[in-house]
């Protein structure tokens, strides 16, 4: 076991876990931040996407111990009141079906739009291709990313 210090959503946290514990399970099992989802555990589906210094990463394969110097943002910390432009666009377009993958989709989209504020539709498709939605909300995800880009 090791004491790991993490800065998550602007707050300092200290957790006592095995060193190889992925950030995903630290968030969910030890910090009660369950918005970040487990689905594949091997960086294939994107449900576990969080930001590391503003960049989208797969928290399911990233050991928490490797992130002690970084600023981590989860869906819970993306905005104060759920009013990040991407979250607002997601609500406006009414994107979700089951909703399980959507936190990861939002985290991926928000990191992408920071880097590329005025993307083409092809660039949106390319960026969002790394997240799976089993319900098939892809048309609406695409529409919401485009809407968020316009509103920013």
């Amino acid at each position, binding site marked *: *076991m090791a004491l790991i210090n993490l800065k*998550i959503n602007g*707050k300092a*946290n200290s957790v006592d*876990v*095995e060193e*190889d*514990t*992925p950030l995903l*399970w630290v968030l*969910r*099992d*030890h*910090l*009660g*931040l*369950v*918005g*970040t*989802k*487990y*689905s*594949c*555990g*091997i960086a*294939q*589906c994107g449900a576990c996407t969080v930001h590391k210094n503003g960049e989208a990463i797969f928290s399911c394969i990233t050991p928490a111990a490797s992130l002690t110097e970084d600023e981590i943002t989860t*869906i*819970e*910390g993306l*905005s104060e009141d*759920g009013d990040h432009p991407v*979250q607002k666009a*997601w*609500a406006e377009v*009414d994107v*979700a*079906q*089951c*909703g*399980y*993958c*959507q*936190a990861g989709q*939002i985290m991926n989209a928000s990191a992408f739009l920071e880097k590329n504020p005025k993307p083409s539709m092809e660039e949106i*498709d*390319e960026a*969002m*291709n790394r*997240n*799976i*939605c*089993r*319900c*098939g*909300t*892809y*048309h*609406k*995800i695409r529409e919401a990313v485009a809407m968020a880009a316009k509103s920013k």
Partner: protein
Amino acid sequence: MATLTKTNRRDFLKIAGTTAGGLFIGFNWMSCDSPKMEVLSTEEVLANAKNFNAFLSIAPSGDIVIYSPNPELGQNIKTSFPMVVAEELDADWSKVRVVQANLDTEKYQRQLTGGSGAMPHSWERLRKAGATAKYLLVAAAASKWEVSADELSTSEGIIYHKASGKKIGYGEVANDAALLTAPEEITLKDKKDFKIIGTPVKNVDNESIFSGKPLFGLDFYREGMLHAMIQRAPFGMKIKSIDDAAARNVAGVKDIITFENSVAVVGSSTWPLMKAKKLLKVEYEADGKVESSADHDEIFKELLANGKAEVKRKDGNVNTAFRNAAQVVNAEYQCPFLSHSPMEPMNFFAHVMEGSVELVGPTQTPESARRAAAEVTGIAPENITVEITRLGGGFGRRLRADYVSEAVHVSKMMNAPVKLTWSREDDLTGGAYRPAVRYRFEASLDADGNMTGYKLRGVGMNAGNSTRENNFPAGAVDNLLIENVNYNSSITTNAWRAPITNFLAYAEQSFLDEVALAAKKDPVDFRLELFEKAKANPVGGELRYDVDRMIGVTKMAKEKSNWGKNPNVKQGFSVYFSHRTYVAQVAEIEMENGTPSLKKIHVVTDCGMVVNPTGANHQVRGGVVDGMGHAMYGNLTFEGGLPTQTNFDKYRLIRMKEVPAVDTYYVDSGFDPTGLGEPCLPPTGGAIANAIFSATERRLRSQPFIDQKEFQDLNLGIKRA
């Protein structure tokens, strides 16, 4: 026309106390960074609210709580059910809060999600719940003002007396109204007066979903609970020996226990269990058939040729028809096993106590969850509670309660509250799959290209009927024979979104294109001829489908897709009836620099009245994307009783870049609403395969397409039009 219907007294029993059950999960066990939950304010509302019936309570503030009994897995029932209640209540939608009801077999009927049946089964009951409460509120206002109820009108939660200019909010008369006796008969609204039904009301859980609040089963934590993961046996095998020494040494592992054919690793959090499970050394030995996909291919061919067939439907005499045929067409179609793979893996919380059990989690059939716990513990069902969380997808997988039984076993043996979590590998290897199927179709044509005979023989698995014998083309062909051959497999099979029709529709609609081609007829006109025949003079006994509605969606699809008019666009048509709903689809391929590109799928749906256009579009597009994804890529093969594809790196699901445009249209048929969770999936594979044939003259008779040699060098592009 307003309808007068009998109320079911059982639905309107006054419930003691104020709350009528609901999901108030103790998510705030760790307050740290979790945002404040909206459900708390709903709880406050309920503290003062008066309960009217199983579906709604009204507070003095005018806030309305509507209970949604059926599990929400993305079909939007948690939004559309309350819309129906609120409509008849004449509620102000902005004052409505929705609570997922717990399992309650006294209050609710058919509290399950499956078969696209929730809306058709509940439509009238939900309407009556709203209308009855409105009746009582109006009666209370009439009594207060000493006027006749006939003089009052309602709108958006307010009661008006036009003659005196008085008005009063529902909340202000709720206490009085709740004391009155519900009427025996109630008048429902005229559909043309609907204000909420038919409008795009947003998903009631949006805020929680988009800000990461706990909603799903896997998000449930209880202070002091244990975590568990399970190693299961391959299909057809049993445990021979277990060496758990290395697994026990993993820090965080509390115990390793065995029950039935399962080895459970139990500990204080999830990650150590994932590690420990990989260190388990479990040897298995055969306990039945240990199957592989290569064996299935041979078995299917043998059973189609020589298997003992059960006749499902027989009209006329196919032997005579085929003997006299000018032309015979036949083809075989096959599909692989599929996993449901909802994004949220299986999980459940169970707490077995002295004489009672508490269950919390994602289930499509909460009553089965209760039954499973009763079977494992011997505790009476009335002492077992089931809280239904939001489901991160289901697709039929969560109709089974195998994972609930497991959680109960572990809780019972550990004498502690337990959350069982399946890994994705567990999900793919311990599934209850869409069975592999093989079909043989035969059609006879006369000299004029009329289909005189039709034969279908399918291999169903585990006593499942692989056919839908009373669906089209039954009724449209004079001589018809539908047969099923059973194959018993050790592999667990189960309903998978649009059971049977998820592949049968593709096979049938593709085969009918082959027949139309042989008959030298336009594929759409060929089907319309058959429909007209079934309409004018239906052949044989029971028919499940309404021919006029088949014609309705077909004609609208022909019109909306500009069928056959643009020589640069190669089209494929498919039409199918399933789960009470009628769907026609046209897939479109354009050639670009000599390679085909799938650009668009037109979808025409007749699901009766559309309750929520946004929700309906979701189900239509989602069904098409799902149907396309699995037809193109879905493949689960077995080797030695275990799937070869154990995670999403090998089990391919459709992604953003692989989705064409999907245009949606609805036939306004005037019928009551039917379900949409499944019916838009079945026709998609056929529409795409028929478009591919139209563009390339390559006929795809097996799924997934990407594994067929006819498909591999096509370089089919997918681009949104």
